[in-house]
């Protein structure tokens, strides 16, 4: 591929160097910013092929490049509510889809499934297949 730079280390002029494997391993491998209200849609993303609206507050995201195993680390944020202490969360139950190709998440409000009013955001770090 044109424009490729092959390097094992990146060196700063004064702050030392870091192996490029740390950069590769530490990079976010997928991320998505989606809306659940109205007609579910993806605002922006990387390495996502689709989002599936599975009901109130429940979505499934599928990846274009599979993760290598199911021990990757995902995180999410639910942008909703009008106050700093509103109890809006995003989570995944033990029975939900969690595979190298997809992840299911729930948005909820005070323990009740609830369509995220604004933006549901999910990302993950880990190894790619």
């Amino acid at each position, binding site marked *: 591929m044109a424009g490729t730079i092959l390097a094992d280390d990146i060196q700063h002029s004064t702050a030392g160097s870091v192996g490029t494997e740390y950069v590769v391993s530490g990079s976010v491998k997928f991320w998505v910013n989606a809306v659940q209200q109205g007609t579910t849609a993806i605002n922006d993303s990387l390495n996502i092929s689709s989002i599936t*609206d599975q009901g109130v507050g429940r979505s499934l995201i599928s990846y274009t490049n599979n993760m290598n195993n199911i021990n990757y680390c995902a995180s999410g944020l639910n942008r909703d509510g009008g106050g700093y202490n509103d109890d809006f969360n995003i989570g995944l139950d033990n029975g939900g889809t969690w595979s190298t190709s997809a992840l299911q998440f729930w948005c909820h409000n005070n323990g009740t499934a609830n369509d995220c009013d604004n933006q549901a955001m999910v990302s993950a770090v880990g190894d790619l297949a």
Partner: protein
Amino acid sequence: MQTPEFQGTHLWDRLCWAKENLEPHQSEYRVVFEDNIDECASILVPDPNWMACALQGGILPPVEVYWALAEDEAKPDFKKHTRGYLLHNTKPLDAMTEEQAIEYLIMKDVPQHVWRDYQKANRPKLVICKTNQLPKTREWRNSWKIDESVNAIKEVA
């Protein structure tokens, strides 16, 4: 823009190239399907960056690659993928039409038992539609089902 020769390039690198160089395409198509009779209908929404890759061509691997990885993952002793190279080394697909991309996405992201024999079912389990054909609000969202009067084959064709 011409897609670089990507066969052998890591798929994730291709996606990063696409993110940098291609305009996202928000498709109006939606795929409504019923995975479980006890649950409400699901609605698959294509990712705009993924759709840009499909329309561009030369980026995405054949869908069979994903099936091979899914078979590996379904094995009881699965720990990690050992055939990830299939994603990167298999010849990428040429440019698709939007309709072809939706068919590809169904075969990639919708459970196989839903689409493989859908025309043999007693009622439609999968329908491709446009966003303006979906309910305008999410009222009773957890009760949504595919209308049994829909002629799935006619609608999909």
